């Protein structure tokens, strides 16, 4: 087991926003009554003139952000992922993405690890409904450092972008100086027997799974697929060719998520067995985060089990 430090991804978001606000006067922020939880409060306290409280009104907030972008500003909006991506989906689709407006979205409370608030607050479909939108950039960072870097990176590009992360602390598996490039997968561990492709919290579980497999003499490559769109198709194709079997792991519905996106690339380039770890077409429920992760099959052990199936399929074919 690792001695990982556990930190909040949203702290990385909040700190990046302070850096951005300092550097660029065009950076503004909008909030929908969740300022403290989303860390928008930090920006509000430092740059009160550039923070707009919109009340509990996500649809208005997203379209107003579109207007701010049209006025030449760089608006960041944040809320819980369910309400940000879901409630305002049409606003994001038609007003923001179709017009390619420079709006940056941060969806907190992604995944089942949101815990006791239950199904209503656990964003499990957000990646699917954001990924499907043309012109969207979608990042699912794995830890505090990566969330900070992702936030800085999306500010540096022009066009709509969405960053998705969880509520709870996650293991810090990258370092402050780990390279981060939008659209470029990061290989966390070398290996040629199979590849585990993960994002978000599941990157830590993938690393643990790889260690367990290594004990059994199986060398797994671990790819941190932090950018879900544009997807690093080259890294996926290479993994398929070089390792011949893939397991994906995400804290999200399997339908429309990282697993599905990976499979789309694999079947079109170099078909090999793909096994997926994720939420299986069901809503979540109330419970402690660890309990839920286990009950819904989102642990290192679940990745190991899928890896064994993928390896079996690989040797048969």
């Amino acid at each position: 087991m690792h001695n990982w430090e556990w930190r909040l991804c949203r702290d990385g978001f909040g700190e990046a926003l302070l850096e951005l606000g300092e550097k660029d006067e065009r950076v503004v922020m909008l909030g929908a009554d969740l300022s403290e939880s989303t860390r928008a409060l930090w920006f509000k306290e430092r740059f009160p003139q550039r923070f707009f409280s919109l009340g509990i009104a996500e649809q208005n907030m997203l379209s107003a952000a579109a207007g701010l972008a049209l006025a030449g500003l760089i608006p960041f909006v944040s809320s819980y992922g369910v309400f940000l991506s879901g409630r305002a989906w049409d606003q994001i689709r038609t007003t923001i993405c179709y017009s390619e407006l420079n709006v940056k979205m941060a969806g907190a409370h992604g995944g089942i690890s949101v815990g006791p608030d239950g199904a209503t607050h656990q964003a499990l479909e957000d990646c699917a409904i954001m990924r499907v939108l043309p012109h969207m950039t979608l990042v699912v960072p794995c830890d505090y450092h990566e969330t900070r870097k992702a936030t800085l990176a999306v500010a540096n590009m022009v066009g709509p972008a969405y960053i998705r992360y969880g509520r709870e602390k996650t293991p810090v598996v990258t370092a402050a100086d780990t390279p981060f490039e939008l659209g470029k997968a990061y290989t966390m561990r070398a290996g040629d027997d199979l590849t585990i492709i993960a994002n978000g919290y599941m990157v830590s579980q993938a690393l643990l799974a790889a260690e367990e497999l290594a004990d059994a003499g199986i060398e797994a490559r671990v790819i941190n697929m932090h950018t879900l769109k544009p997807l690093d198709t080259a890294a996926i194709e290479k993994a398929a060719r070089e390792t011949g079997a893939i397991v994906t792991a995400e804290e999200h519905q399997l339908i429309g998520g990282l697993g599905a996106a990976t499979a789309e690339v694999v079947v079109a380039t170099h078909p090999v067995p793909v096994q997926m770890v994720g939420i299986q077409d069901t809503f979540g429920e109330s419970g402690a985060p660890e309990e839920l992760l286990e009950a819904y099959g989102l642990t290192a052990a679940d990745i190991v089990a899928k890896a064994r199936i993928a390896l079996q399929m690989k040797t048969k074919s």
Partner: protein
Amino acid sequence: MNEVDLNDICREVRCDILRMTAAAGSGHPGGSLSAVELLVGLYCKKLRHRPQEPDWPDRDRFILSKGHIAPALYAVMAHTGYFPREELLTLRKMGSRLQGHPASMRLPGIEVSTGSLGQGLSVGVGLALGAKLQRKQWRTYVLMGDGEIQEGQIWEAAMSAGHYRLDNLCGIVDRNYMQIDGNTEDVMTLDPCADKWRAFNWHVVEIDGHDMEQVAAAYDTAASTVGKPTLIMARTVKGRGVPFMENVAAWHGKAPSEAELAEALAHLAATNQ
């Protein structure tokens, strides 16, 4: 039941809310405590319902649009016999029927799952239209938070209820002037709040939402109002009944510690003279 008995129930419900959230280690005591009289007045006095037969077709419908105050609703439901009071302490625990936000597929008596703010009044409009179409006598009640009515959908629903003169629909706004980020008027101004509803063709009754007599009278007025939906604008105090929680935004979504629970329960017991 007279108002004195109802006030006793309110005190017990407040104790339950505090015990439940403390046992869960999370939850929303502030907005639960502000709506106690509104819920008790409805469930114990006005609502035509059969707790032993939750899907009785002729029941009045209640929708908790501000789903985060599930603890208050569960406590009142337990008091009126929907399920045993012991079950209250399973709130937010794995496998419990008492989900963090009300889940209709788990708990009989919940009409529709809520927790995403701003949608309940629209469901109420549909229920009320459905009742009228089928000449049913049952009525529909929808409880909203004041922060919640910043959602645009609330006003779409308000417009349609006014348009269809849904006098079988009663909306209740828990006007505690607080939401997560602070005072509602700082976050996004709502006042003149009652006038907004009037402008949307609602009959508006403004009351002290902690005065059981006024609460009961408001529900009676709603039932006897013809040709318009009724909106009860209930002035309340968030965290009501627990001095250290009253009007403190931080108690929106935080559970009391053991010590805080003891202090709160002791205070509530002392007011029982």
